[in-house]
């Protein structure tokens, strides 16, 4: 069998990106949560806030550490496997990614050490400032990375000359037509991720009646956030969808599983898209609803996949189902937000076992939703690397062979599998240790332990303390 460097490179990129993406999406929200806890601690002087902060800083440290090591790979991936793409887009992407490094990465790295290990070395106000800077850094980082990504979906302010892109307007290129929607959608997703993880872990503590005063407060904050953010995300997602309909109609057609451009299009609850036959099997549908959602008119026209040749259609099955997974997760999140509100009377949410257990399971939901969302948007762009301008095949490194791509693909999978299993295992240990372990100082004499992100956590790797 001939090894295809294109397919292998796409799998490799998808794998590395998906693996990496789950860490920043969590740390962006969590960094803000920690900054808020530090602010409350500074303002009220109530030690409860600092107890919470010490615990969640531990979690942040572990996740951030894994994000950093997986992220270093990303900055080299464009060049190793997609050198034609990198060379063609360097005039735009190069400065954007460099700005990310100098405005975000250095800010995070510079203040992280102080946030994790400097509590006893600097005044409390400075420590809060470090927390704030780390949180701001994570947001600046997502600003640049989403500007770069959006430009591939809805390129603007760029002109092509002799095979290379030149920037005609930096503001048009950065604030391209889909950037705002993506930035907002991802920002809210990050807050939701942190909220659900905090809610899930805290629900577990509450069930065990551990550190009730602190954990009650954390759970309450998380539930308020979920109540507000989950519905807000539905609205933002809807606007993002309308923007996609305007700029990338084929992607929307794949999300809807709609083959023919027509009016009064039904919403498919279930279907088995068959790209070869260019039709769906086993459809379960609600008449006219897709038209209504997308055009706000029951008889509005919705574009179909057949507007473009079959080889220019994205892999419909993947886009169609990933979209449903994302929306399904979103709906569940809204439900949990409402359930929290209903149970709030007389603090019943602290007693309701099914609800607390549900929250524990739901702590995985934002990760699933985020990955599914990225699959929708990235796979929906196929076969285009830069929408309607450059295909994946054109962006590939010319000297790359299938064997080389396979070698590194297997390599990354092995390396990441080891990192990930060690990281998750360790995170579980931190969770088991809870606020109690985080707030013991038996290893805290400043130089007695490694002054490192994960070493901020006091728990033992093999499970002991």
């Amino acid at each position, binding site marked *: 069998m001939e090894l295809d460097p294109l397919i292998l490179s796409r799998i490799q990129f998808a794998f590395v990106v998906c693996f990496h993406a789950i860490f920043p999406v969590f740390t962006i929200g969590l960094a803000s949560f920690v900054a808020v806890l530090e602010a409350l601690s500074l303002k009220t002087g109530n030690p409860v806030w600092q107890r919470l902060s010490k615990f969640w800083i531990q979690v942040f440290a572990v996740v951030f550490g894994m994000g950093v090591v997986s992220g270093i790979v990303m900055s080299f991936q464009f060049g190793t496997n997609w050198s034609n793409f990198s060379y063609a887009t360097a005039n735009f992407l190069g400065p954007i990614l460099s700005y990310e490094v100098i405005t975000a990465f250095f800010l995070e790295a510079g203040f992280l*050490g*102080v946030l994790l290990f400097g509590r006893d070395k600097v005044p409390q106000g400075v420590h809060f400032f470090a927390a704030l800077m780390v949180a701001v850094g994570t947001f600046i980082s997502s600003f640049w990375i989403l500007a770069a990504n959006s430009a591939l979906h809805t390129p603007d302010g760029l002109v092509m000359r002799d095979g290379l892109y030149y920037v005609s307007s930096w503001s048009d290129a950065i604030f391209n037509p889909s950037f705002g929607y993506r930035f907002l959608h991802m920002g809210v997703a990050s807050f939701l991720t942190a909220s659900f993880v905090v809610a899930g872990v805290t629900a577990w503590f509450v069930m065990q009646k551990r550190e009730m005063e602190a954990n009650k407060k954390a759970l309450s904050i998380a539930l308020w956030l979920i109540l507000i953010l989950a519905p807000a995300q539905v609205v933002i997602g809807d606007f993002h969808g309308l923007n996609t309909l305007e700029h990338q109609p084929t992607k929307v057609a794949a999300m809807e599983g709609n083959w023919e451009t027509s009016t009064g299009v039904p919403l498919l609850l279930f279907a088995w898209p068959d790209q070869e036959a260019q039709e769906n099997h086993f459809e379960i549908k609600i008449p006219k609803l897709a038209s209504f959602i997308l055009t706000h008119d029951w008889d509005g026209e919705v574009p179909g996949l057949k507007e473009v040749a079959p080889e220019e259609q994205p892999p419909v099955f993947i886009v169609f189902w990933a979209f449903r997974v994302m929306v399904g997760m979103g709906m569940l999140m809204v439900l949990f937000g409402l359930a929290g509100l209903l149970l709030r009377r007389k603090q019943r949410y602290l007693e309701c076992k099914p609800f607390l257990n549900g929250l524990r399971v739901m702590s995985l939901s934002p990760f699933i939703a985020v990955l599914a969302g990225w699959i929708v948007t990235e796979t929906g762009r196929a076969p285009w690397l830069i929408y309607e301008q450059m295909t994946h095949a054109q962006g590939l490194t010319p000297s790359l062979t299938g064997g080389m791509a396979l070698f590194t693909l297997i390599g990354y999978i092995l*390396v990441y599998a080891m990192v990930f299993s060690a990281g998750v295992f360790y995170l579980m240990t931190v969770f088991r240790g809870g606020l109690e372990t985080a707030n013991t100082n038996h290893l805290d004499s400043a130089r007695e*332990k490694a002054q490192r992100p994960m070493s901020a956590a006091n728990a033992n790797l093999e499970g002991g303390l």
Partner: protein
Amino acid sequence: MEQPFDLVIIWAGIIGFAVMMYVLMDGFDLGQGILYPFAPDDHSRDIMMNSVAPVWDGNETWLVLGGAGLLAAFPLVYSVFLPALYIGVFLMLAGLIFRGVAFEFRFKANSTRYLWDWAFAGGSFVAAFSQGAVVGAYVQGFETSNFIYVGGAFDWLTPFTIITGLGLVAGYALLGSTWLIMKTEGELQQWAYKITPILLIVVLFVFVLISLYTPFVDQGVLNRWFNGVSIIWLLPLLALYCAFLVFRAVKKQQEGVPFVATMGLFLFTYLGLLASKWPYIVPPDYTLWDAASAYESQLFLLLGFLFVIPFVLGYIAWSYYIFRGKVRGGYH
């Protein structure tokens, strides 16, 4: 297009600075991993790791900046080097990941601690070796056609690049041992005093070997160095003077000088290497100007750079200041 001034030179300086910052800063913490298996005892290993723990991930940010900066300012370098060094880059990244993770987990492990020790030492060695091989591959040159790399997957791996790879391993170990002289005391410091001259001799040996060998792989280099005496001869002389300073300081048991002088040794060797190849950045065919990105792109990033980098250097210095002083004790 009419350009008021030549940004290419400025950007060559900035990227050169970022690469040098990376080599010096990650060099001393990679050096800890390389020296790891030879350390006197487990307690020393704890201190070695502690001494670089608060700063190593900030140090590696310079590597990311080097990558992104090359894409921004000299995209041809980025799009030729990375495909040409494909396998080497993967090995370097895998090495850096293992070693980064080892930092996090070693202190938490008991029964599996030896695994993380190996990950730290092995990862550091592989990363340092691959980086040294990259330097060798740069000296060697790349087979290109029409701005695209057309060579094979293992063209970068030759006896010459293996020597430069091992040379950088020794160099980083030297940075690591002189760092230990500065940051530790007692038994570990004495051990560092003992091994520093040995490492220095190995580094000088490779230095001489490369200096003799390089003119033979590249006629241009031969002409540059041997067509009349020129000012660039000052660079290797300064490098040798720094090596002498290290020897003397170790003998006198000075604490700060060895590290600073080793940084000087690196700096002048690096400048000498660049002087050999100037103005070729993708040898043997493309100069800095061939490899440069658009003027507007270089200008756009330069403005941000001039504004932001002073702050960056400021809070890095602040962070080093907070964690200043000798590193004592270890994990119990």
